[in-house]
């Protein structure tokens, strides 16, 4: 059963010939989102007016989302600041569907994070679900088997009436899609802050594994090779704007309604994954591209412009879910679960056999040519004749004005220390104990288990660490134990206070998390979530963040391999905090060496690595007191690098049995989390620390200074461990001992905290709001 477009119906087909003859025809370029000068440029490129179908293509490919027109000039720094040494492990860098990193033994890993913020606000379940679907297709199209997902999420205030709707929908959407694909969810973030109220952030990361020789790229080479579209049928998804292509509508009947949202079909995608992997194994595809934003427009123009430069397709061959779609709409449709591939004629039969085995529908659309043109026909008449590069790569580039916000200085001057709120700083042992409990039962530091238990972390049988540990860890090679670790992080409050340092802090934290698990950090992906680029102050935040992240990558020697920019995240003219989500990938020779975040063995020594300064600005504690001002904690990437080396060496050489980095909530949060991980407490004394770093107990517990971690060291390894830290000149201090029998966390100067009470405080928060 194959229904192609109903060519018997009469469209007013706007052919290239017609366009040449009717130069003055009115076109709805503004409604399609093109600016006047952009429309002018299209005319200039074509040396005539565009056809309706061409207009559809240019408008969607030149949109902010597809062309990165506002961000491009800044993103270049990621490439410019990459040294040869950083490139050592890069097999595929920025620009392809996802970057590919060499992890040794012929294995490679590809990973990328992307946003699906706006769709998730409108329809949380489907928006989040299709976000996972989209990023996973990027991974497949590199030739990899997807092996895990992660989901950094940001919501409005936990008690806002709309938050439960979004949390329920988004979490079940991520789970509903990812669980059905058989991809373990190995980490993410859940942050609540009223700045995200009307604009939740749903970022999704996927990681895939492949052999070096399996890398596939999105290019259409080999004149005469066939172009095929396969997977789900094309429907009217995501083409709201295209209905203004009036010149295209039916003569006799109005097109049927276009869907307001896209609905995902995870089953179709799971079948697509297995089918693609079988195609790769049989070596029957030359180039492949997933269909995401801008659908066929994007796939044809990118494949063509990355290849030998020409492609000729017949659009009526596209299998449709809704036969009333017009050619322009078919080109713009964002229907999910579709792929496009280039296949040699001699492989066509083998290709079809594999698709038939998996019951996947396909249609041959055309072939690769050497004309340098992308030509699209509708029932034999040419409706698109363009240079594909002008569509895919030569879109407009803006140097948008940017300007440091007028309020930045006064915000930075408003320190938490010395502020009115500071008067109530906890000091007595009872107050400090209450403060610890308040901290770990806050929306941002409470247990995220209500979320994570809705995700399958076991499927595929290779998950060595997942939530609540610092990084997700996946075995890649069953024989050797070769594997990877991943963590994503961002702190919107730090970035609001200082976007340059905030971005560096995000990288530092993700890097630290990966090292804490025992993996050597190798590469970076990022999802830059910001407000409107047309607001110069937002644009400044963006520019500063990219500058900060790219500088930091250079300092730490880890390249950005790919990512995503999400702009216009604002409601009622108010932008979200700048939120650069940074994902770091690290590698293990043997994941058996991975370090979990909780201690277990009675009597092991607890060490604090790094030094603590009075850095409470932007902290979780200040947030709980309703304060946001001052400069965020200082980032010293030299120290981060040293800390990372110590953690990785210690893990590899069996010197530590547990490690947990310090980040939001500082030492207090880390001690509680490491105790609750396996329900094993500790006795801690911080007097020496207070003396050494010149701080009080409250600061020691709640400051968020970077470059720190706590580790549990077996007695037998203590000397070796201390010697290593000393040799490297890295601050280390024994602050306590693991106490398996006591059932409590005992900190000198703080009332004892029973683990049962801590667990109850930590785990009851999300159920209270969302069950």
């Amino acid at each position: 059963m194959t229904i192609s477009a109903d060519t018997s119906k009469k469209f007013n087909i706007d052919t290239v010939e017609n366009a040449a003859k009717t130069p003055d025809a009115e076109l709805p370029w503004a409604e399609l989102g093109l600016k006047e000068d952009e429309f002018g440029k299209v005319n200039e490129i074509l040396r005539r007016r565009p056809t309706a179908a061409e207009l559809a293509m240019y408008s969607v490919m030149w949109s902010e989302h597809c062309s990165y027109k506002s961000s491009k000039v800044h993103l270049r720094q990621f490439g410019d600041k990459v040294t040869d040494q950083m490139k050592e492990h890069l097999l595929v860098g920025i620009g392809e569907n996802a970057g590919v990193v060499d992890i040794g033994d012929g294995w490679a890993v590809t990973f990328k994070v992307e946003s699906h913020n706006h769709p998730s606000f409108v329809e949380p379940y489907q928006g989040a679900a299709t976000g996972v679907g989209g990023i996973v297709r990027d991974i497949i199209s590199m030739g990899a088997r997807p092996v895990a997902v992660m989901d950094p999420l940001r919501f409005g205030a936990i008690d806002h009436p709309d938050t439960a709707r979004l949390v329920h929908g988004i979490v079940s959407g991520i789970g509903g899609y990812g669980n059905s694909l058989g991809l373990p969810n190995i980490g993410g973030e859940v942050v609540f802050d009223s700045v995200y109220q009307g604009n939740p952030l749903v970022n999704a990361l996927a990681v895939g594994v492949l052999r070096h020789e399996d890398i596939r790229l999105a290019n259409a080479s080999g004149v005469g090779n066939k172009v095929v579209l396969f997977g789900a049928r094309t429907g009217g998804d995501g083409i709201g704007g295209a209905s203004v292509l009036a010149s295209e509508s039916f003569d006799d009947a109005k097109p049927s309604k276009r869907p307001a949202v896209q609905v995902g079909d995870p089953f179709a995608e799971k079948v697509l994954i297995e089918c693609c992997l079988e195609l790769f194994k049989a070596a029957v595809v030359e180039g492949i591209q997933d269909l995401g934003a801008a659908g066929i427009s994007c796939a044809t123009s990118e494949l063509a412009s990355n290849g030998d430069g020409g492609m000729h397709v017949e659009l009526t061959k596209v299998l449709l879910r809704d036969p009333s779609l017009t050619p322009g709409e078919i080109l713009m449709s964002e229907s999910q679960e579709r792929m496009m591939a280039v296949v040699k004629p001699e492989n066509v039969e083998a290709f079809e056999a594999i698709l038939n085995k998996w019951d996947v529908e396909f249609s041959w659309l055309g072939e690769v040519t050497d004309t340098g043109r992308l030509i699209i026909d509708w029932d034999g008449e040419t409706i698109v004749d363009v240079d594909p590069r002008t569509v895919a790569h030569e879109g407009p580039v803006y140097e948008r004005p940017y300007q440091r916000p007028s309020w930045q200085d006064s915000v930075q001057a408003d320190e938490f220390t010395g502020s009115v709120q500071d008067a109530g700083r906890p000091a007595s042992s009872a107050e400090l104990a209450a403060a610890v409990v308040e901290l770990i039962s806050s929306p941002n530091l409470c247990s995220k288990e209500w979320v994570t238990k809705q995700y399958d972390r076991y499927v595929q049988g290779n998950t060595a660490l997942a939530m609540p540990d610092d990084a997700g860890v996946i075995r890649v090679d069953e024989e050797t134990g070769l594997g990877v670790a991943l963590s994503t992080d961002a702190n919107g409050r730090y970035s609001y206070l200082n976007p340059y340092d905030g971005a560096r802090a995000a990288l530092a934290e993700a890097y630290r998390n990966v090292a804490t698990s025992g993996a050597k950090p190798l590469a970076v992906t990022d999802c830059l979530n910001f407000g409107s680029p047309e607001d110069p102050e937002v644009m400044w935040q963006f520019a500063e963040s990219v500058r900060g992240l790219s500088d930091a990558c250079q300092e730490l020697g880890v390249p950005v391999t790919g990512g995503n920019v999400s702009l216009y995240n604002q409601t009622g003219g108010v932008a979200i905090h700048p939120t650069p989500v940074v994902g770091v990938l690290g590698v293990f020779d043997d994941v058996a060496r991975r370090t979990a975040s909780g201690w277990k063995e009675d009597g092991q020594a607890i060490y604090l690595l790094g030094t603590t300064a009075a850095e409470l600005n932007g902290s979780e504690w200040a947030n709980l007191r309703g304060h946001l001002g001052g400069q965020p904690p200082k980032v010293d990437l030299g120290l981060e690098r040293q800390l990372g080396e110590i953690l990785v060496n210690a893990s590899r050489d069996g010197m530590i049995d547990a490690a947990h980095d310090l980040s939001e909530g500082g030492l207090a949060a880390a001690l509680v989390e490491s105790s609750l991980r396996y329900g094993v407490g500790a006795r801690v004394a911080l007097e020496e620390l207070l003396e050494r770093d010149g701080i009080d107990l409250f600061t020691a517990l709640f400051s968020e200074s970077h470059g720190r971690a706590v580790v549990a060291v077996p007695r037998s390894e203590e000397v070796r461990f201390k010697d290593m830290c000393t040799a490297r000149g890295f601050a280390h201090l024994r602050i306590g001992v693991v106490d398996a029998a006591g059932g409590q966390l005992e900190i000198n100067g703080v009332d004892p905290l029973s683990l049962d009470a801590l667990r109850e405080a930590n785990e009851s928060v999300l159920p209270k709001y969302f069950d």
Partner: protein
Amino acid sequence: MPRIVVDVMPKPEILDPQGKAIVGALPRLGFTGFSAVRQGKRFELTVDGEVTEAVLAQAREAAETLLSNPVIEDVVKVEVVEA
């Protein structure tokens, strides 16, 4: 006790993965006469007492707000049946 039946279907323009899977399975079982299947929901609300206009209005509103997701579904029927 009287019941009100509410029928909810995916909007026609929206992809219905479940219906798609079913229409694929039917011919394999020898059911060949069907070209499309869509799967929706049927709710039976038991009314406490008599079905007044007010109760019916409540059912209609519940159908639009709670029982269906207006972004992707249509309420196709709200109807009283006697048990």
